[in-house]
């Protein structure tokens, strides 16, 4: 708003960017969960540009004990990972995930949106109801759009909480994603002789759509 051509002037003058930076700082400090730019803008004075303020704020906290991190389309302040040893007191004991749950989570993250059948095909074994339930309960996965194939199966995608938990800016930042894709290991390659090519095209569309931001 402050960058708007001078001919048009907002009725309400936006606060100086340094002041906006303070506001974004206060908002992020006050919240345990990531806050979107839109949510910040809604709480800040009319004409504020939290996205710009964030650029400054992020720089200000570089190398500090806490950091400004991006989580999906939201922002949060988190302690620097190298200081984790100081926080034994704060460590939250999380239920240990089964191997099946961890693999299922990884498959959903790397192949999203993924149907249960696709997860089972990759793992070569049935996915138990409890595994999916556990991941849903942790809010690391959620239902995506139904697949437009016979039976209209539900799909699963990873959530902002997932990104937040693993310190990822977006699903595109998953470790090794590019290499896996280049190696064709994220293709939904059907068993020869079981033509499922229609499926395939849509899959790819869905996936790139999700990963594009």
């Amino acid at each position: 708003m402050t960058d708007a051509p001078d001919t048009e002037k907002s009725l309400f003058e936006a606060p100086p960017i340094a002041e906006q930076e303070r506001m974004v700082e206060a908002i992020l400090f006050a919240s345990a969960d990531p806050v979107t730019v839109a949510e910040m803008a809604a709480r800040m004075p009319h004409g504020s540009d939290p996205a710009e303020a964030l650029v400054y704020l992020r720089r200000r906290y570089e190398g500090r004990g806490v950091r400004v991190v991006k989580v999906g389309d939201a922002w949060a302040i988190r302690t620097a990972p190298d200081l984790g040893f100081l926080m034994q007191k704060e460590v939250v004991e999380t239920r240990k995930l089964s191997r099946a749950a961890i693999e299922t989570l990884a498959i959903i993250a790397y192949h999203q949106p993924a149907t249960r059948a696709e997860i089972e095909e990759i793992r070569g074994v049935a996915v138990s109801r409890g595994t999916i339930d556990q991941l849903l309960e942790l809010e690391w996965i959620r239902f995506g759009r139904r697949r437009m194939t016979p039976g209209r199966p539900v799909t699963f995608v990873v959530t902002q909480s997932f990104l937040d938990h693993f310190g990822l800016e977006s699903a595109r930042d998953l470790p090794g994603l590019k290499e896996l894709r280049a190696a064709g290991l994220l293709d939904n390659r059907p068993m020869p002789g079981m033509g499922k090519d229609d499926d395939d095209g849509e899959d790819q569309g869905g996936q790139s759509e999700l990963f594009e931001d």
Partner: protein
Amino acid sequence: MADPSLFEEDPQSVSDRLQAEALIVDVDGFEGPLDLLLTLSRTQKVDLRRISVLQLAEQYLVFVEKAKKLRIELAADYLVMAAWLAFLKSRLLLPPDPSEEGPSGEELAAHLAFQLERLQAMRESAARLMARDQKGRDFFVRGLPEDIQRSRKVHYTATLLDLMQAYARIRTHDQFRPYAFDRDHVFTMEQALDRMRGLIGFAGDWTDLASYLPDGWSADPARRRSATAATFAASLELAKQGHIELRQSETFAPIAIRRKPQ
């Protein structure tokens, strides 16, 4: 799992049995046949892309045979995989039959290798994911988040479709309650009878039938017609019952009624 007593009936030597047991000791530890295949493939110590699927199929079939000998009940999907690998093995060993339909043994083998490689890749990715810094373990959120005080504001919404449907609903409601509609503009003979029974007691002299029309029914032509017809029919009924007399001086002249003298 096998009952220990089964082993005693087994004719195998002790060392054979131990070897067999070593293989199946952890059958529960495998997450399905693909996982087992992946584990077996490690003995080949090659890149999964260059793995010998034929050799792998052999290993798997040997495993299943041993399990059978030990009378270990394998889950159905292990047996399905065994049957499929036996089929694949035959395809790989026999020269390709051009008349045969479907994918070649090589294509099937390549797909199996792809599945193994993909599973392996997902395993490694899962491990890398879990090795990342995690919230609540390596980095932490604000320990003292401040509650945001919420003030609620309700925003009402309606679409043009809602509006039109509402209007349509009202209008059809009017038109398709025909009985209610009729009652508005139709005076029934029952109503006329009720009304006249109450009034004829006062009709000692000849009175124009039109004066018996109920209030508010003479202005609107449709209502007047209906009320007139009903009142006339009711007067005929009352005359028939011997309560009143009727007279009309000429055609289309006003009809007059009076109470029949007792």
